[in-house]
């Protein structure tokens, strides 16, 4: 039972942190994709969607190569004395990367649904772009953004492939998926089943909320 609460609590907490981490860049990317024409726009659009289609394990291995001590950014991260790989931070990174496309897609649809005239009116009344964004665009797009956050959160809860690559399976930082997989491998079916029930319950709530917010999942 302690494992149930520990693992579920940890997973929900990490998915929450991951959602908070992906929200600012996610909203920004969604907004520029919806409202701005710029060079490389379709490339950005494609890159942002990639984690949806690339095998999660591959994404995890790429992240490991980037963040590992011998990786591209790993040296820098190591130099400032931060450990990412095989810690809870790696769980957040994996979850955020995997949830990001869902957040962006939904939030972008939200921004696109905002009538440009309101933004135009605000601008002619002297509002600066940032103020237009905060007072007009974001509040009007909030359903899409919220739904995207819920979808990203749900994706983060279920994340497995990338997580197991860069966060491993450490006691105390095992997510639901990783813990279920480990129990299954060790033939501990009862322990796995208890966690599966928790996973289904969380998934149910998340999808229910997303549906009530009016997004197609």
């Amino acid at each position, binding site marked *: 039972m302690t494992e149930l609460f520990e693992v579920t609590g940890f997973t929900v907490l990490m998915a929450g942190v991951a959602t908070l981490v992906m929200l600012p860049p996610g909203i920004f990317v969604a907004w520029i994709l919806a409202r701005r024409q710029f060079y490389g726009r379709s490339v950005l659009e494609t890159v942002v969607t990639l984690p949806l289609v690339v095998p999660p394990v591959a994404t995890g291995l790429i992240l490991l190569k980037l963040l590992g001590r011998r990786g591209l950014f790993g040296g820098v991260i190591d130099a400032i004395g931060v450990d990412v790989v095989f810690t809870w931070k790696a769980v957040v990174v994996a979850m955020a990367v995997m949830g990001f496309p869902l957040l962006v897609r939904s939030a972008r649809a939200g921004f696109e649904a905002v009538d440009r005239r309101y933004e135009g009116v605000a601008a002619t009344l002297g509002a600066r772009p940032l103020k237009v964004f905060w007072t007009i665009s974001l509040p009007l797009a909030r359903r899409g953004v919220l739904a995207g956050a819920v979808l990203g959160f749900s994706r983060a809860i279920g994340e497995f492939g990338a997580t197991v690559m860069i966060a491993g399976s450490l006691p105390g930082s095992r997510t639901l998926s990783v813990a279920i997989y480990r129990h299954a*491998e060790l033939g501990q079916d009862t322990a796995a089943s208890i966690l599966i029930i928790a996973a289904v319950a969380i998934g149910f709530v998340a999808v229910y909320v997303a549906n009530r917010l009016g997004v197609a999942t």
Partner: protein
Amino acid sequence: MTTIMRSLSLLLIVGFWLPSCSWPVAQSGSLSTATVVVSVAASLSDAVGDVANVFEKQTGIQVLVNAAGSQILATQIIEEVPVDVFVSADERQMIRTIAQGNMDEGSYLQLLSNQLVVVVPSDRLMGISRPDDLIAQSVRRIALGDPEAVPGGVYAQEYLEQEGVWDALESKVVPMRNVRAALRAVEAGTVDAGVVYRTDARQSVNAVIAFDVPVGRGPRIIYPAAVSTEPPNPESAAQFFLFLQTSTAQQIFEAYGFISLLAH
């Protein structure tokens, strides 16, 4: 409509069946040649691969090698995944399968032994030469097989407990799915040290042996082998099991650094 339904159900069947394709036996049905399915501890995968090649040349029987952590193999076997021969990296996992009636106790034999070593990334040696050195703060993470189940991890914990350093090291331990994965983590530099088998460490380039665990001080490592009580390929199973005990096979194992437990 019916064609749609039919193709849909076909898709469904294929969808459910496909994951099992990674399991070698799924293919054996379509092959006319005789096969034998062998589940071996991850640490044995290279050596058994070589043994299998020689066996295939001599007998024409195709060997399908399924290598993974022994605890995973044991779970598969208990879940009735068809296997002819099982070579585990410890007795505990073999006993699990014998107790469930999947592996034949009568065929059980102690095949090989191995030795533990402590490895470090080749670019960060840190002067580690004995167990106490692992306590140092500069050693932040130590990769092992999962000490709860992976044989190599169980052995590693036993050893570190004997040396009286386990309590100090436990919080640094990164449990991996098998000992090979622990070695990979050391090679990639994502951990500072690892406890692995000497046979694996010998083949590594980016990880170097910091010190050997003397055979007398470490736990006694035993690789037991057994034949299934209901082998899918009974004749090939018996032939391969005998071949594992020949001096030809034992010499290959010894070339990889394993210690033969059979007199020959």
